[in-house]
């Protein structure tokens, strides 16, 4: 039974990571109705920035805050400079631009920091916390950070005028523009926020999977599955979906199909959700009027 609980515990930890990347995906989806394929690579690159700052001697939390800020600005700049010119291009052309971003970030990280695996420090103590034996302290810390980010985002979207303006810009750009919201800038802000959330996710995942340019590729797929499971337009659903996918992945990997085929679980899950409940657990069902 101990082994079972250990699997559940480590599932919750990885689930927390899927949850934060899924959260970033849902954010961009809500703000722009696009799924950013470069999300994982952007998070990976942010983590490298944090790594160089820590390496240069900055304390962890200073580096953490600076990385989140830099990522936010980076996200805004990317939207303004790279995504904006293709705003009116066909959807698939935009997807190709995302793919371009993905390979650029991956290749740049490999070029600047090499492909050797680096260890990334954890800000949390190494002694077990509160007597939890099954979840590592870093795991508990990562889950806590994810929940804090979720609460902050919820409060931002629910209680601030800026959050309201962003929701309006995404839901009905034309009317939002008529009441004086600068829709273009709201999109850019959405990108910035998503990049910042991604950076947090990257810094939380790096101590577990180690830092290398390809660290996010598996994570991104599970995050997609999590976002779909929870409903692609529901931030809370994305977080819950992340935890469910993390635990399922570990249990199924340990007891049913073995580690080799773990990635297939994401496929089964995605296809299953789409067939049984396409809107996800908490998503809104869209009804098209004919």
């Amino acid at each position, binding site marked *: 039974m101990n082994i079972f609980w250990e699997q559940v515990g480590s599932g919750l930890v990885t689930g927390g990571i899927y949850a934060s990347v899924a959260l970033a995906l849902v954010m961009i989806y809500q703000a722009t109705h696009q799924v950013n394929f470069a999300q994982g690579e952007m998070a990976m690159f942010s983590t490298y920035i944090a790594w160089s700052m820590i390496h240069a001697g900055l304390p962890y939390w200073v580096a953490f805050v600076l990385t989140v800020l830099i990522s936010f600005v980076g996200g805004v700049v990317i939207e303004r400079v790279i995504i904006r010119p293709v705003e009116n291009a*066909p959807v698939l052309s935009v997807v190709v*631009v995302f793919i371009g971003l993905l*390979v650029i970030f991956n290749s740049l990280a490999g*070029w600047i920091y090499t492909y050797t695996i680096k260890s990334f420090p954890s800000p949390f103590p190494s002694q077990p916390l509160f007597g939890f034996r099954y979840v590592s302290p870093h795991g508990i810390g990562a889950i806590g950070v994810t929940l804090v980010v979720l609460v902050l985002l919820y409060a931002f979207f629910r209680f601030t005028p800026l959050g309201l303006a962003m929701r309006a810009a995404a839901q009905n750009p034309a009317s939002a523009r008529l009441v004086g919201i600068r829709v273009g800038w709201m999109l850019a802000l959405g990108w910035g926020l998503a990049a910042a959330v991604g950076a947090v996710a990257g810094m939380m995942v790096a101590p577990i999977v180690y830092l290398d340019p390809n660290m996010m590729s598996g994570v991104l797929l599970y995050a997609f*599955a999590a976002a779909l499971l929870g409903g692609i337009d529901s931030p809370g659903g994305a977080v819950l979906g992340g935890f469910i996918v993390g635990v399922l992945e570990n249990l199924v990997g340990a007891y049913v199909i073995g580690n080799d085929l773990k990635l297939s679980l994401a496929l089964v899950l995605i*296809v299953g959700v789409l067939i049984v409940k396409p809107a996800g657990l908490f998503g809104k069902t869209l009804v098209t009027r004919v």
Partner: protein
Amino acid sequence: MDANTTAIATRARFLNARLAGWVALAVLSCALPFVISSYHTFQVTMVLVYAIALLGLNMLTGYNGQISLGHGAFYALGAYTAAILMNSLNVPYWATLPASAGVCLVAGFLFGLPALRLEGLYLALATFALGVTMPPLLKYKALDAVTGGVQGIVIIKPDPPFGLPVNQDQWLYFFTLVIAIVLFLLARNLLHGRVGRALIAIRDQPIAAEAMGVNSAIYKSLTFGVSAMYTGIAGALGAIAVQFVAPDSFDIFLSISFLVGSVIGGISSIAGAVFGGAFIVFIPNIASQISKAAPWAIYGVFLIGFMYLMPGGVVAFLRIALAWATRRFRK
């Protein structure tokens, strides 16, 4: 001369020019392997192979509006079918093509059935997962005896038949060229007729199409099947040309470069597939010549640059350029 005869004369001149263009293209493609090196012949063969695969994707995504980020999986399926048949059952290389086509047709049709419920983004995600899942499945231990596991399968390059005076690379080029021409003509007839109109109608106005009596479920899942079949044939040809199949050559990046090639060539066009194939084969080489250290960064810059300059793909760009040129000449 009255207006009518002028119009006829212009039309005749246009048709003559077009015929001359096709003849020139035919002569060029027959002469090509005799003037370039073996390696370049191989590269051009791969352009044709990818063009066939992209044609399948264009049918599905461009004409029918179903996005696929997982066509590498069907390419892999075709390649492995051919490789296993040649390796374990000693089937001649040309006979593996119908087998790969059949397997992929069925697989594509079956995947197309659940995909009916999905649209746009969701379909992209489901197919993306399909593409990601393929390499681990091919590596799966229980199938090692058939698939060769991580090592893959090595295939022997076919010799030219009937004592033709060409070498293996040239023969393979002509073999691929003939198959590509046949498949392109079939696709052209399919897409420019009744079926093609139905596919476009489903893409643009699904509800109106249903109201006009188009059975969209059958059309969509069959399109998925036919599209997978084209890509599967390409996979078989590619396996014969490369003489090797291994799980890691069919990773998600292959699927992504298919979509990239399709979009860059021009996704709702038949000719676009050829430009896309050329992009897939040549741009990574050019990128690594520009920068040895970070070739994929250069590749990414190429991608974004192409989309800035020609958001509708090369074919749309050429059409605009041609229209502009004809206007210029008329004046």
